[in-house]
C-alpha cells in the first residue's frame, strides 16, 4: 500500500463512471461524483430538465451506480417528496433521496415545488448546481446569474443593481424551514464531502448550493475550471458557509482575499465590463460579504 494513501480523505468508491456526456471542463460531473462518493450507494437521485438530464447518459447508457428518476423541469421538490414517501412505505428509510437541479430549475421555475417540499418537511437533500444561467439551452440569464454577466438574453451584461444579482436562495430556504444548508465549491472537494456528510446525518429538508463553472457558457478555457472555481471563493464572489441550528457559520475563512478582477478576467462573459463596472462588482461583493458576516455574527451572540 502506498504510504500516502491514508492521507486521502476522499472515498475511493466510484458511483459515477466515465462515459457521461458532459462538456470538457464542466463542473457538474465533478460535483456529482464527489457527492455520490460522500453519500454511498444507498442513494436515489432525481433530476429535472437541464444539463443534469443529459450528463448521466442517453438511454440505454447510464453512468451512475445509483437509481436516477427523471422528471419535468419545475418539480424536483415534489418528486423528491413522492420518492421519499414511497421509500418510507417500503421500509427503505435508510436511503438518501437527492433532488439535483440547476440554478434555473431551482431559483426560478422550481422554486414553488422546492418550497413545498421544505414546508412538508421532506427528508431529502436538495442540491443546486449553480452554473449561473440556463446553460443546457445555451446560456440564458437566470435568477442566479451574477450582475454584469453576459448571457444570450443579457447581451449587454445583466444589469448591475444593488445586491449581487443572484437570488439569495440559501437564505430564502432558511426562512422557509430547511434544517441544514451550505454552499460548496468543486474546487474544495474535501469541504464538499464534509458538508454532504453533515447533511446526510440530519433528518429533514437539506440544501446544498454547489458552485459549478460552465466553460462554454462562461466563455472560458475548459482547462481553467478548478482555477476559476477556486477564485470565486478566494475573491469572495462565492463564499463558503453553512446554516445549522439557527446559526450561519463560515466553513472556509478567506485570508488575503483577492480582487474580483482576477476572477472576472478569466471569463469571456465579463470581458465587456469597464474598470468602473468592475469596481461596482467589487463593491457588491464587499457588501455581500459584510451582510453575510453580520448574519454569522448575529448567530454567535
Amino acid at each position, binding site marked *: 500500500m502506498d504510504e500516502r494513501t491514508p492521507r486521502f480523505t476522499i472515498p475511493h468508491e466510484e458511483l459515477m463512471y466515465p462515459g457521461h456526456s458532459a462538456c470538457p471542463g464542466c463542473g457538474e460531473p465533478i460535483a456529482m461524483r464527489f457527492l455520490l462518493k460522500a453519500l454511498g450507494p444507498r442513494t436515489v437521485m432525481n433530476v429535472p430538465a437541464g444539463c443534469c438530464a443529459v450528463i448521466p447518459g442517453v438511454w440505454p447508457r447510464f453512468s451512475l451506480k445509483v437509481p436516477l*428518476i427523471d422528471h419535468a423541469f419545475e418539480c424536483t421538490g415534489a418528486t423528491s417528496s413522492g420518492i421519499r414517501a414511497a421509500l418510507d412505505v417500503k421500509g427503505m428509510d435508510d436511503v438518501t433521496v437527492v433532488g439535483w437541479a440547476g440554478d434555473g430549475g431551482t431559483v426560478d421555475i422550481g422554486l414553488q415545488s422546492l418550497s413545498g417540499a421544505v414546508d412538508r418537511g421532506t427528508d431529502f437533500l436538495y442540491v443546486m448546481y449553480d452554473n449561473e444561467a440556463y446553460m443546457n439551452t445555451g446560456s440564458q440569464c437566470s435568477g442566479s446569474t451574477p450582475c454584469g454577466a453576459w448571457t444570450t438574453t443579457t447581451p449587454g451584461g445583466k444589469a448591475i443593481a444593488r445586491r449581487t444579482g443572484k437570488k439569495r436562495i440559501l437564505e430564502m430556504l432558511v426562512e422557509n424551514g430547511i434544517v441544514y444548508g451550505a454552499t460548496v465549491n468543486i474546487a474544495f472537494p474535501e469541504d464538499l464531502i464534509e458538508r454532504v456528510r453533515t447533511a446526510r446525518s440530519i433528518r429533514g429538508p437539506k440544501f446544498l448550493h454547489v458552485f459549478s463553472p460552465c466553460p462554454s457558457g462562461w466563455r472560458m478555457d475548459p482547462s481553467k475550471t478548478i482555477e476559476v472555481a477556486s477564485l470565486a471563493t478566494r475573491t469572495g464572489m462565492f463564499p463558503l458557509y453553512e446554516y445549522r441550528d439557527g446559526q450561519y457559520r463560515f466553513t472556509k475563512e478567506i485570508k488575503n482575499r483577492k480582487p474580483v478582477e482576477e476572477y472576472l478576467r478569466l471569463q469571456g462573459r465579463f470581458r465587456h465590463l469597464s474598470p468602473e463596472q468592475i469596481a461596482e462588482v467589487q463593491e457588491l461583493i464587499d457588501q455581500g460579504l459584510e451582510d453575510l458576516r453580520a448574519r454569522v455574527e448575529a448567530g454567535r451572540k
Partner: protein
Amino acid sequence: MIDALTANQAAALAAKLARIEVAAVYPITPQTTISEKLADMVASGGMDARFMLMESEHSAMSALIGASYVGARTFTATSSHGLALMHEVLMWASGVRRPIVMPVAARTIGGPWNIWGEHMDVITERDVGWMQFYCENNQEVLDTILMAYRVAEDPSVMLPAMVVVDGFILTHTVDAVDVPEQGLVDDYLPPFRPDPVLNLDDPRRFGLVMPDWWTEFRYRIATDMEGAKERIREADREFGRIFGRRYGGLVEHYRTEDADAVLVVAGSAAGTAKEVADRLRDEGLMVGVARLRVFRPFPSEEIAELSSKRVVGVFDRSYTFGDGGAMYNEVRSALHGSDNIVKNYVGGLGGRDVTAAHMEWVFRNMLDIADKGLDRRVEWVGLRDGSGRW
C-alpha cells in the same frame, strides 16, 4: 354494505379499498371532499397510506410519479384548472408508464370563472396517454376506480387512468352505494408489483431517449393502449363474477338492439337519456342509448356496431372550438363508411342541467331527421338564442 354516499365519498372509499400507499392532494372544487375524506380516514387510523399535502396539482402528480417508480400504489384527485395545470406531468406519467389512478371531478375551465360541471377539462386531456372512464352514478365511481387500478397495473398495459366524475351532479349528490367487502376487493385487485421497479442493487434510469428509439417507445404506448380494451372488457367480466355488477365493458348498450335512433352519451346524462328512452319506447318510438364508458382507448369496435342504425346522435358535454364535439367527431370517424346520419348535440355546459325535456327533444329530433335528413351537424341543446326553440 349499502351506504348513502356522494361520489366523492365513494371515490375516497375506493382508494381505501384499493389499499393505496401514497396519496398527494391539492384542493380544487368540486374535488376537494375526496381529499378531505382521505385525510379523515388516514388521520383516524382507518387507512394506512402516506398522505401528502402538495402546493399545486402539478406537484401532486409529480410526487406520485416519483412514488410509483418506487413501487407504491398511488392516488390523487383533481378537476378543471388543476387538471390543466397537470397537463405536462400527465404526459410524463403515461410516457414513463406509471399506472396512477385519478378521479377527475369534471368541470369547465375558465375564464371567465365557472366552477360547475361539464367535460371540457377531461376532453382537453384526451391525447395525453391516460385511459378515460366516464361514470354514470356513484356506485360506478367506486367500482370503476377498482377496475381502473386493475387495468392500469396490468403488466401489458402500465398506463395511468382518470375516472371522470361529473362535477356536483355526482360529486356532491348522495346516492345508495354498495360498498364491497375488503376481502372481495383483495381478490379482485392484487397488490401492485411492477417490474422493473426501483432497485438499489440494480440501478437504472428511464431518462433521455433519442430519435433512434423514441418512435418505438411511442409505438409501445399506442399498442398497449389498444390492448387495454381487452383488459377493460376482462376487468368488467371479472368484476361481475366477484361483485355481481357489470357495466358493459367500454360501451353500455341500452335498448340499442332494435333501435332506429341511438344516442351516444357519457357520464351522468346517460341516466337521464335511459329514463327518457324508456318513456319513448312506451310510446313505440325505437330509441336506445349507447353509453360511452371509456373514451380512451376509444371503443371503435363497439361504436361500429351502431353502423346499421338510421341515426346516431352524439351528446357532447364539451366543445372543441373549431369543429363540433370531440366525442361526436370520434364516433363519426368510427362509423365512417356506413350510411347512417350522425348528428352532434352539445349541452350541459358550465353546470347547466341536462333535463329530461332536453333529452326528449334530442330523441325526437333524431327520429325526425331519420325521415327528413340531417338539418344541421351541430345542435346546441338548450341554447338561449332567442329563437324560441328552447
